[in-house]
């Protein structure tokens, strides 16, 4: 084990050279560690995204099948114009799917409209003839100036989940509001009409008996500015959107809509299992009447973004490792050439060649230990800077791609086209924005752990071993006579 002592004596005797070696090795280790940290952080972010981003299944009328049926009807009967007939979702069917193991919760949505009575709807230019858009999800309604979103619970709607709408006063609609006439109105509408929590408003149905209903304001919400500006052509002002229990919305639509919904959204407990949940759900429904669609776009966006970051981090690790091996091998080769005389002396003493190689390896390992400590201290900073840059590039790409879909920024604010949510709700207050959520989720938590340092040590040892092996050819061929005598 004399080569350990020789390695130590050599490193301490040639301080300048040792410091230079430590600096070069530290730089290599720093970049390898940054790559490892980003890769591990991307892994963690992806698995966290599974839990946090979530995925949904939406049960709604099968419009494709309905169109086919309409067209086949028009080919046989040429006397009258064919009508598109879709079926609302029966809640009993939805409850069957809700019992599946991967379904965490569900929310029913019914959209309709009514006219304000005794108070004024917000009027914006171009919105006077708007309101519920016809035939967007199954029900056909006449237009009213107030868009009604009947929900199981406001908190589970995407607008409130992604914070584009927030309850500012009172409370939201909950499951306990089933069968009641409670309503949550938008803050601008409340301000214009001097309404507050506890007041009553009246809405007049636009269909059937055109009955007037009295509703009690239980909460006031504020839609975000972006939601307010996302109204499309023909939509009512987003401030005219109100939330009620789905049972009240069904009452306004008519008696035949009792215990139905325009669509039912199921939250899947594990986004990775959304396909399995969809398959199991489809087996429980009549697919000619209903369609079951998935929306895991946020999860997929984060996953794709993190996969890109991870792939880039992998490339950093391998490129730096390969470049580091080459650089260190060249340094060691130069070092060995410079130390031919010393090798010759040791060989003349009868030292085994492998022990001379081992001495160089031990010297490099000693350098590596110091370099890992330096890299450990600076790795978090470099990893953070590099990670931020990578994530910002990935998020920009993700945002651009989600906004470039058909009808980007359409009313409803839903970038996924898999939620035919009945009537469009007054310019898009409710809805989700996957790019927003991906930006929020795609953050890398970069921390240096003992495991990272162990992994770095493994990489470092491999680099040192390869470098020494590449350089030791010279030692194995060296003849002491040539060095010491000739």
């Amino acid at each position: 084990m004399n080569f350990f002592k020789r390695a130590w004596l050599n490193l301490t005797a040639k301080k300048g050279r040792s410091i230079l070696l430590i600096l070069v090795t530290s730089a290599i280790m720093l970049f390898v560690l940054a790559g490892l940290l980003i890769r591990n952080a991307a892994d963690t972010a992806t698995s966290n995204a599974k839990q946090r981003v979530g995925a949904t299944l939406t049960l709604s009328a099968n419009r494709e099948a309905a169109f086919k049926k309409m067209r086949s009807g028009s080919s046989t009967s040429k006397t009258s114009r064919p009508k598109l007939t879709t079926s609302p979702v029966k809640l009993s069917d939805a409850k069957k799917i809700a019992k599946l193991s991967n379904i965490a919760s569900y929310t029913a949505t019914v959209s309709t409209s009514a006219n304000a009575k005794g108070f004024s709807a917000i009027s914006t230019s171009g919105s006077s003839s708007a309101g519920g858009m016809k035939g967007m999800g199954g029900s056909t309604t006449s237009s009213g100036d107030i868009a009604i979103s009947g929900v199981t619970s406001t908190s589970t709607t995407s607008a409130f989940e992604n914070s584009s709408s927030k309850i500012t006063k009172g409370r939201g609609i909950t499951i306990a509001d089933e069968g009641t006439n409670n309503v949550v109105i938008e803050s601008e509408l409340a301000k214009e009409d001097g309404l507050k929590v506890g007041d009553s408003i009246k809405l007049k149905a636009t269909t059937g008996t055109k009955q007037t209903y009295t509703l009690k304001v239980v909460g006031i919400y504020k839609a975000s500015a972006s939601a307010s500006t996302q109204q499309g052509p023909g939509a009512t002002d987003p401030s005219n959107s109100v939330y009620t229990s789905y049972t009240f919305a069904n009452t306004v639509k008519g008696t035949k809509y009792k215990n139905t919904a325009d669509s039912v959204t199921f939250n899947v407990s594990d986004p990775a299992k959304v396909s399995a949940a969809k398959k199991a759900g489809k087996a429980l429904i009549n697919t000619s009447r209903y369609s079951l669609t998935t929306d895991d776009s946020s999860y997929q966006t984060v996953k794709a973004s993190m996969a890109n970051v991870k792939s880039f981090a992998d490339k950093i690790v391998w490129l730096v490792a390969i470049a580091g091996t080459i650089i260190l091998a060249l340094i060691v080769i130069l070092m060995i050439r410079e130390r031919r005389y010393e090798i010759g002396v040791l060989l003349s003493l009868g030292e085994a060649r492998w022990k001379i190689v081992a001495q160089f390896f031990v010297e490099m390992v000693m350098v590596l230990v110091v370099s890992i400590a330096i890299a450990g201290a600076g790795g978090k900073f470099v990893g953070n800077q590099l990670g931020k840059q990578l994530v910002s590039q990935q998020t920009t790409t993700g945002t651009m791609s989600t906004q470039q879909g058909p009808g980007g920024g359409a009313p409803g604010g839903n970038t996924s086209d898999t939620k035919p949510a009945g009537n469009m709700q007054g310019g898009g207050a409710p809805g989700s924005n996957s790019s927003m959520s991906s930006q929020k989720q795609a953050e890398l938590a970069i921390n240096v752990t003992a495991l990272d340092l162990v992994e770095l040590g493994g990489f470092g040892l491999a680099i040192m071993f390869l470098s020494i092996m590449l350089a030791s050819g010279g030692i194995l061929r060296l003849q002491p006579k040539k060095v010491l005598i000739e």
Partner: protein
Amino acid sequence: MLKANDIGYWYDRQENSLFEHVNLEFKSGHSYAIVGQSGSGKTTFLSLLAGLDKPRAGQIELNGEPINQLGLTNYRRSHVAIVFQSYNLLTYMSPLNNLLTAMAVTNSSHRGDKAFAMDMLRKLGITDEQMTKNVQKLSGGQQQRVAIARTMVCDAKIVVADEPTGNLDEENTQYVIEQFQKIAHEQHKCVIIVTHEPDVAAACDQSYRLAKHEFTVEA
């Protein structure tokens, strides 16, 4: 003890051999000098005896066994110690560490015995202060003494030296000559010295001259 058995050496072609059919025997407790003109092949012959190279013909035998069979590395480690004209010490170490390293590498019976090494250095005129300094800070004569001390702390029974006094002044030369004679006669080792200097050759028990590809015994 050590026998050159019909050995020959050449670089490219046998016709240009440095020497051929050399048969010499070296005994323990004796000192030998090999003299001759520059380029005659003295150092090459010494490198064959030291196990630093292999003869092209014949073989070197140690106590009747070819050194090739022992393995040249093993032979150098266990049986031979070499002193070079340019000292060939480990330059990043102190004199003391040079000795301790040699003792460790050669598995000397005094391996790890720092006091023994220090005592040997003292005997050769290296002070306690000098023995812990970097070896390059010593004069040429002192470095050669350290190199000789290195051969003395190892258990090797054969000591070969290539122009050990080539870089030394008269006083140091005389000192080194005395040390080699002590190694041969007091430690009962076989000392073989390649030299140009008549004083060194004269001090040895036996001298061989290499001239015209042949070894002859000097009177």
